[in-house]
Each structure stands twice: as C-alpha cells, then as structure tokens.
C-alpha cells in the first residue's frame, strides 16, 4: 500500500524512486500545477461555451469559406507529434537521469524537436489566421468570428508560451545541468504541453469538424 502511494505521488509520470529525494520533492510542485491546469481548463471551457452560443451571420463568411481542413489536420499532426516527443523527453529524464548517465544531449534533442514541431503548428495556424482575415473573416466582423478567433487564439497563445518556456528550460539545462529545479520545471511543462494537446483535440472536433458538418 504505502509503496504504491510513494511510487505515484501525483497524476502522470512520476520521477520514480531512482531519483531519490527529487522524487518526493516533485509531489507538491507538480500536484500544484495540476490544480492550476484545472483552473485553466475552466477558462478554456468559458471560451468554448461562448463559442457554442454564437452562430455565423449571413453577412460574413462562415466555416465553409474560412476553414482549411487540410491545414488544420496538419496542425493536429504537428501538435500530436510534439506531444509524443515531449513524452520522450520526460521518459529520458525519468529513466536515464535516474542513473545519472550522460543523457542530457538526448533530453535536449527531444525538447528541441518538440519546439520545432510546435513552431510548425504555430506557423500553420498563423497562416490560416492570415488567410481567414484575407477571405473577409477578421474577428471584428461578427460575434461568431470574435469567439472563433479568441478560442483558437487563446490556444495559440498558450502554445507560444509553452514554446518559450521550453526554450528557457533548454537554456537552463545547458547553464546549470539537470538539477532538481529544472526537473520540476520540466515535469510541469510536460503537463502543460499535454494539456494543450487535449484542448486542441476539443477545438479540432468541436470547432473545425463541428463547423463543417
């Protein structure tokens, strides 16, 4: 009983006993971040709710004219792939850093790959925004477009924040090595990154697929 509790101190990937005290130290910090994520989820929920109550107006272009499903599918692929690579980064942290082998390079490789995929996502998303504006659908045209742009934009803003955060972590690891604080930061960032994936899946199905059905 006590063993299983100590093994999993918070939801998600734990550092594990191999990390010694660091494993226990992570408990409060990562649990706290999960709580914060719940709060953030409610914020997204509110933007979803407002989006759900708006309808495209006859005056302005609607989903059929504005959405580029191929591009959205590509964005989804980028983001899901980046979630996978971020997971690889955390697995590297968990399994190889426990034995303190020289795995920092591998860790940084996975993190930078994640950043690259995230940038791909952002590039496609911003291109789509520009195309939407050019097709007569800027957010100032109607309530529907305001809700659409803010919901998708809020997610994009989170992704941007996540990318900056990841780069800060990479820089931090290069400066100080993988010490306890960067481990904790990495764990929290990973929760954040997967969270953005979950939100994106909701946006993809609810906003884009739902809009075109």
């Amino acid at each position: 009983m006590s063993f299983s509790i100590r093994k999993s101190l918070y939801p998600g990937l734990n550092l594990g006993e191999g990390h010694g005290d660091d494993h226990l130290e992570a408990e409060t910090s990562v649990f706290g971040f999960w709580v914060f994520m719940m709060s953030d989820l409610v914020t997204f929920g509110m933007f979803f709710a407002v989006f759900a109550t708006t309808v495209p107006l006859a005056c302005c272009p609607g989903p059929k004219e504005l959405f580029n499903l191929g591009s959205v599918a590509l964005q989804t692929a980028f983001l899901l792939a980046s979630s996978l690579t971020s997971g690889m980064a955390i697995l590297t942290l968990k399994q190889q850093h426990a034995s303190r082998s020289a795995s920092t390079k591998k860790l940084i490789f996975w993190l930078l790959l994640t950043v690259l995929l995230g940038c791909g996502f952002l590039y496609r998303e911003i291109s789509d925004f520009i195309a939407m504006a050019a097709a007569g659908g800027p957010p100032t045209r109607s309530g529907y477009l305001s809700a659409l742009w803010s919901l998708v934009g809020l997610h994009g803003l989170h992704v941007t924040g996540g990318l900056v955060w990841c780069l800060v972590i990479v820089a931090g690891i290069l400066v100080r090595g993988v010490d306890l604080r960067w481990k904790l930061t990495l764990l929290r960032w990973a929760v954040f990154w997967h969270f953005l994936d979950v939100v994106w899946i909701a946006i993809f199905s609810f906003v884009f697929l739902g809009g075109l059905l």
Partner: protein
Amino acid sequence: MLDAIFGRLTWDSIILVQAVENPNINTIITASAAAMMPVGGVMIVALLTWMKWWKPLFEWLTSVDHKKIGTMYIIFAVIMLFRGVVEGMLMRANQAVGLDGGFLSSNHFNQLFTTHGTNMIFFVAMPFLFGLINIVVPLQIGARDVAFPRLNQISLGLTAAGGFLFMISLMVGEFSTGGWTGYPSFTGRLVNPGVGPDYYILAIAISGIGSTLTGVNFSVTIYKLRTAGMSFMRMPLFTWTALCTSILLIFAMPPLTACCAMLGLDRFLGFHFFTNDMGGNLMNFINLFWMFGHPEVYILVLPAFGVMSEIASTYSGKRLYGYTSIVAATMCIAVLSFTVWLHHFFTMGQSATVNAAFGVATLLIAIPTGVKIYDWLATLWGGRIRFTAPMIYLCGFFVLFTIGGLSGVVLASPTLDYQLHNSQFLVAHFHNVIIPGVLFGILAGIHIWFPKIYGFRLVEGLSRITAFLWAIGFILAFMPLYQTGLMGMTRRTVAYEDPALVPWMVVSGIGSLILGLAFLFILLTILVSVLNRKKLMVPFGDPWDGRSLEWATPAPTPEWNFAVLPKVECRDAFADAKAKGTAYQPIGKYDDIEMPANTYYGFIIMVMASGLGFGLVWHMWWLAIASLLGAIATAITYAFMPQKQYIIPAAEVREIDEAWRRAAREGTGVTRDDECKEANKGLAIPATITNP
C-alpha cells in the same frame, strides 16, 4: 509625439485640474478624495524617514513569511475599507436629502456605487479573508509556511496592483459607472468609450489572477502540507472552510478572467462578444459574470463561517457540535454555489421552467446553511459562554445573518423576484448577508488571532463597543431599505420624488454615520491596544484557551511557527494535549530549520502589473508592452537564479523553544474568569466541561 507617450492621458484627465477649472460640489468631493492620496503619501514617506522605517518596510515587502503576507493583506484591506465606508456614507447622505435631487450629480453617484461595490468585494472582503487564511491556515495544519511561498507573494502583488489601478482612477480619469457587475453594452465601447470601464476590467482581472493563484496555493497547502496525523476529518473548521474557498477560487475565478478578457477585446480591438449588433450577445457576459459572481459570495462567506465555528467552540469551552455535519454542509454549499447563478437575472428572459429550476436550487442552499446555524447553537448549549467581543459578533451573526438569509429565500422565488429585483430590498439583502456574515466574521477573526501574531490582545472594552456599533449601524442603515424596496424604490437611485421615502432614508443615513464611527473604532481599538501592549502581552500564546494547533505556539509566533512539527492524534489536538497534561512537555530532538529567503519577485511583478494596467487604460502602448515584457523577463530571470534559503540552527531554535516550554510548565495559568484581565499572559487553565 505626445500622443505616443501619453496616449489619451491629457492635462484635464487629472481630477485636481478639473476641480480648479470647474469647481462644483462633485469635482470638489472627488478632488479632496484624490488629494488624500498624495498628501497621505507624503505623510507616510515622512513618517518612514523620520522613524527610520525604510529598511523594515522593505523587509516586509520582500518577505515570503505567510504571517507577514497575511498582515499586509489585512492592512491593504483596512485602507480600502476606509474608502468603501466613506463612499457608502456619501451615497446614504445623498439619498437622505435626495428628494427631488441630492447634492451629487448622477454621473458622480454612478461612479460611487460602482467603486463602492467593486472595492468592497475585490479589495476589502477578499484581501481581508486572504489575510486571515494566510495567517491562520499554516498554523492550524502544523506547517511552517504555505506550499508556494513566492507564489503567495506574487498573489499579494497582483492584488495590490489591482488596488493601485482602482485607487489611481480617483486621481487620474474616472472609474466605471456600470455598477460592480459592469454589464455591457453599457460598458461597451459604443456607449462608454472613456477610461472608466477599462480601469474596472483591468483592476478586477489583475487582482482576479492573483486570487486564482491564492486558491491554487492554499488548496495545495491544505492537501499536501498537513502535519503527521492531521487527517481531513481532524482539521479545524476554519481550515476546512479555507479549503472550500480555495477550491471555489480555482473554479470560479476563470469565468471572471474570461469575461473581462472578452469585454477588453470588445473595447480595445472592436470584437463583437457583447455588442448589440453583429451577432454579439450581452447575456454571455451576464452569465459568465455570475458564474463567477455567485460562487464569489460563498468564497467570502465560507471562511467567515469557519471563524464562527471557532468562536462557538472556543468561547463556550466545548468541542464543536456536529463537526461532520458542518463539514458536509460546507461542501454542499460549495458545490451548490455553482448551480444557482441564474437567480441574479430571473427577469432577463429565460423560460419559467429554467427560472423555477434555479429558484429551487437556490432554496436548497438554505438547508446546509441552516444545519450550520443549528450546530453552532447546539455547541453553545450547556457551554460556559464568555460574552467577549467574538461572542457578540457571533450572536449578532445568529440574528442578523439569519434575517439576511431569509430575505434571500424570498428573493430566490422567481415570482417574488419579479417584484423585488433591482429594488432597495435587494440592496438590503446583500448587505444583510455580507456585513453580519462576512464582515463580522473578519472582525471577530482579527480579534481572535491578533494576539497570536503580534503578541498582545486587543483591548476588550473598545472591541465590544466596536462590535455593537457595527451591529447597530448596520440595523439602522440597512433595515429601512427593506421597507423602501417594498415601497418600490429602485437601487442606485440618485434622486426620487416620493416624500414618503424621506424618513426611511434619513434613518438609513444616520445608520451610515454610525458605521463610519464603527470604522473609526476599529482604528481606535488597535491604537489603544498598541499603546497598552505591555499590559496586554500574552507571551505563552494561548489567551483564549484555544483548541487547535495554532495556540500551541508562543505569541508572537516565531518565524518557523513550530520548533518541531507536531503530531496529531485527534480533533482539537491542543485542547486534548492540555486536558491530558501533555502540552508544553519538553521535546527531545531539534533539527536545523530551512526557511525561504526574502525576494523582490512579488514586488517587481506588482510594479509590472500596475504598469501594464495603467498603460492599457490610457493607451500608452509602450508602457504596456514594456511592463509585460518586463514581467516575463523577471519570471525567466528568477527561474535561473538560485532559490535562496536560510538555515536557522537547531541550537537557536532549542534555546527559544525550551525557555518557552519551561516557563509554561512552571507558570500558573488563568481561568476563564480572568481572560480579559492583565493576568492573562496566554497560559490557560483548561476548563473541564462535559457535553450535556
């Protein structure tokens, strides 16, 4: 060029300039209020320099100690309470002479009720409660600090930044006139292009983010930092209510952030969330606002219920009756609070079925609240009740809060609400729950825990007078409003034509004067107590024969709280230890204590957030962008800086702690008869009362 630097800020935006150019009663009142800030600021600077207090001041501002952060919250709240009370008195005075037009212009009156409401909720009640929670919760659960001490400091900084924006609107520009709820489209860009609504949005959004972080911090503190043996069902009631409030903050603040962000997008970038045209829907704002707004009511009142629970058991010398049912009731209220938001706008066009559902949900909340009242009454039964200040607040609460709750039950019925909504009856109702509920709880809480942190009691006589003044002032100021509401007087009325309202309004005005006096008596109580602090010292730390862990420390509590983290074996752990005679026994082994060092993090974030808000309000884009980038750069810099700790050596802790324990074992305590006398040095002879 000047536009790029100052945005839309002009010379005429400054209130003092307006008063000189166009002197009339409205500009003079605003200008004198505005002038208090520079004058007060100069006086404070002079005082700090004169007393050589700059260094201690910065030690406080950079502190991460939960007791100091809590104190700063409370000082902030007292300053804001002063403004709130004065605004209330102005409005009551205006209505007392308001037959065919009072002395205030309608625009000024609209600003007053908006600032009064915004201020009292966001910058008085919440900081007061956060202050109490900060001070008390870590002590009650046997912890050395909160889970994230630096985040705690940032929360305080964000609250203060919101307060700064709110206060600066008194000097530069104007505040919103849209009420504390700020409904569009009145607060939208089309109707209200000025700075007022921008101040409103940014002040509450910035402080709201601070509140969200407070919620995260305290829920994690209570989940993860409880001392050995402190299971959930052994936690003191105040901690339970703090936990429920934290959970509510986590889930209820995001809707506020979201609706402020959307209104901001409408105003700044011309979006159409809440506009009347182009597919906007203002009902979305109203729904989002009250999805926050209703849980907010319970965010405020639950910790006050926690204080009442502590009073009921401590000041009758008994354990709490029906602990489990109070915990369950608290949780019920927390959950139900998310299911009733629609009762704030029964008249805004839903079907009767929807209204009925929300009406019934609202009525349901009366049940757990009633359970609590009966539990507290049952706690008092057969106890040895001391009629000191906290008990006066509790009894006032029993009578007055119940009346307020019952008027809420009246309003919860959609049919009656069609008559009563937007009337003075509503004003009477929510003041009737917030003053006897929240404010009485806060004031009683300060009376109880003040000696814990500062080492001396508040003078009893003045505290009792203060309590009675609040109760009498409240009754005179707000009970007449039930009557005028039933007579058809609407809320937020600057002038009226029915002479039958005048006597009620005059009584209400007199009541507001007494409330002003009651505020002065708070300051007087503290001042007299500070002057007589030698006589009021309670170094042993247990002036009220307390029951939970916070009383098992000396007063003032050392920065490390507990020399050795206590082990808990039952509810009311300290009462149990005193009864068994195991309190104050020597501890074998002391360890070095590691505490987080002071940091400027929160202070810098406060400055940046204030700059961001002010820059956005006045369209000084350079200031807004620089502040935002500055805040991000600060966060990154601190991520790279080592988190400093400092070590308090075991020997030092041992010396202080052993001396205190020895003195407590050898000292002779006082019985409850001498509780308010000089003999009470904080060492209690525990009363033995068996439950009837």
